[in-house]
């Protein structure tokens, strides 16, 4: 039998492969989509990748692109500073849902409001994965986590945060906001590519949330993992584009 290996994006760093994520983790797929988008746009020499603290940190040597580890929640301002100081670079702030929607939410809101010419990719895995599976702003009603052992009680802790919808609501023309999923790879890649192109065109803040799998903290097998991301998560987190600059609609 002939084994067909998936082609590795050119922008990946082969020395750090196989990657450090758990088996079945969605992070690798998001980064594959990003790697392919970087290749197709031919911007490997211009990209600066910033990774948050969270499982995103495990991507710090994932690419052969200049990469900066930052602090939990602080990737957005670091990338804003780099972009403002050198607008020729294409900067990517890569973060988790805890980093982007909780501890770093003020940075997300204000970067979006200022229409910073950066691209944020936020991995929504409905929990704080790196610290062992606590509740995140995206944890769904009734979902069990280490800090909601009886399920998330919306009376006590509210409903899941809707990031791209919020970004769409607070930004003006020129911004881009979308939600993709690692379960719909081609669509996710298209969104990420559009988000990069939008930055390169200098139009505005570009934001993609990626629904992603975390079988380790979900404690799910392969079938349950797939069902969770495709059926349960999409009930709360609809896929699609929420803000598209004029003329860039499909």
């Amino acid at each position, binding site marked *: 039998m002939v084994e067909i290996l998936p082609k590795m994006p050119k*922008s990946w*760093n082969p020395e750090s492969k196989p990657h450090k994520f758990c088996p079945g983790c969605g992070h690798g797929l998001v980064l594959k989509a990003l790697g392919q988008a970087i290749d197709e746009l031919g911007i*490997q*020499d*211009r990209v*600066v990748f910033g990774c948050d*603290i969270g499982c995103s*940190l495990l991507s*710090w*040597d994932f*690419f*052969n*692109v*200049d*990469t*900066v*580890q*930052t*602090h939990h929640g*602080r990737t957005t*301002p*670091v*990338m*804003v*500073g*780099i*972009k*403002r*100081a*050198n607008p*020729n*670079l294409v900067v990517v702030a890569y973060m988790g849902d805890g980093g982007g929607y909780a501890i770093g939410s*003020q*940075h997300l*809101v*204000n970067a979006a409001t200022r229409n910073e010419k950066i691209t944020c990719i936020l991995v929504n895995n409905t929990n704080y994965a790196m610290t062992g599976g606590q509740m995140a702003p995206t944890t769904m009603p009734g979902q069990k986590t280490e800090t909601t052992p009886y399920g998330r009680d919306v009376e006590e802790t509210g409903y899941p945060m809707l990031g791209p919808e919020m970004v769409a609501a607070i930004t003006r023309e020129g911004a881009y906001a979308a939600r993709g999923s690692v379960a719909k790879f081609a669509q996710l890649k298209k969104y990420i590519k559009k988000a990069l192109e939008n930055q390169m065109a200098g139009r505005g803040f570009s934001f993609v949330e990626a629904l992603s799998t975390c079988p380790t903290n979900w404690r799910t097998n392969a079938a349950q993992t797939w069902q969770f991301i495709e059926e349960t998560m999409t009930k709360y987190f609809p896929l699609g584009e929420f803000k598209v600059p004029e003329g860039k609609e499909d």
Partner: protein
Amino acid sequence: MNDKPITGEKKVFMTGNEVVAWAALAAGAEVMFGYPITPQNEIMHYWTRLAPKYGRKFLQTEDELSAGFTLIGGVLAGKKAFTATAGPGNVLMQEPMSMAEAMRIPTVAVIQQRGGPSTATVIYSQQEVNLTCFGGNGEGLRVVYSTSSHQELFDYTIKAFNTAWKYRFPTFVLADGYQAKMRESLVIYDPFEKMEMVEPEPFVGKPGTPGVDRKPAHLRNAYSVEEELYEALSKDIADYEKAVPELVEHESFNTEESELLVIAHGVVYRSAAMAVKELAEEGRKVGYFRPITLRPFPQEQLKEAARKAKQILVVESAYGQLYRLVRENLYGADIPLKTMFMPGVGITPEEVREKCVALLDGKEA
């Protein structure tokens, strides 16, 4: 567009905040990131008026965390960049400064100390010594210049950029609300005509494709095992220790003759110096020692200055923040330490004089 904010030398009369803005411009700072807080606001006000004339940039961020982290980004992209803050803003600034310390990022921050703890006053203090020297979850691998006059604010703000970019440690100019708001005369100048200016350099976005033409920059502050961290930190500590003799700065007076040595820093040093000089003129055996760098501390120089002293008086607008540095750096010297602590309050030459006389006359133990 003009790119030389100052040519030659110019005598001026201005507030300290204005001085800082001019110094940063003169030093070639290309961008300031800041968040409003008294008493540093006018640094931003002057910067935002002057900067566009010289092609420089400004960003008002959502808080001091963001000011510090955008500052880090600007520096990573290879620009001389700075921020200014105070009090509760300095507290928030410590998170980014801890990252700068870990990653050897040459940030420059001007701190105009105000009263503390908490919101306290917007006026003045010397209560941010601990925070500025040792804030963050690290070892205090920073450089902190404590200025005492507008001339020094100008000189040391320029020097801060050179120090930061030469040694790659976060560098602070530690002043206070009095220095910020007072008007004084000084000479401003173009430092490029006077001294060697250290050029900035990008950490990311250098020419070439990473992995093809050059290695990618993979800049870290997180480590998976203890030994890995220890190795990285040991190198930074060794670099810091090696730089200490080149970095430390101090000033002293009459130490060979003095039985009483007065130690003060920043604006309080000026009161102390006036009182001490007056008393010395009257024939009293008194001198002073003033650390200019609080980090690293001029330890050998202090020990030398204290050799003849029978007693030491530490004067500060804080409750023992300088005192702790003095005690630590004088360890082993058997000299009684007297104190004059006025946390959050200014200290006049008369007050220092009175205290000195009492100590010299043996009226106060």
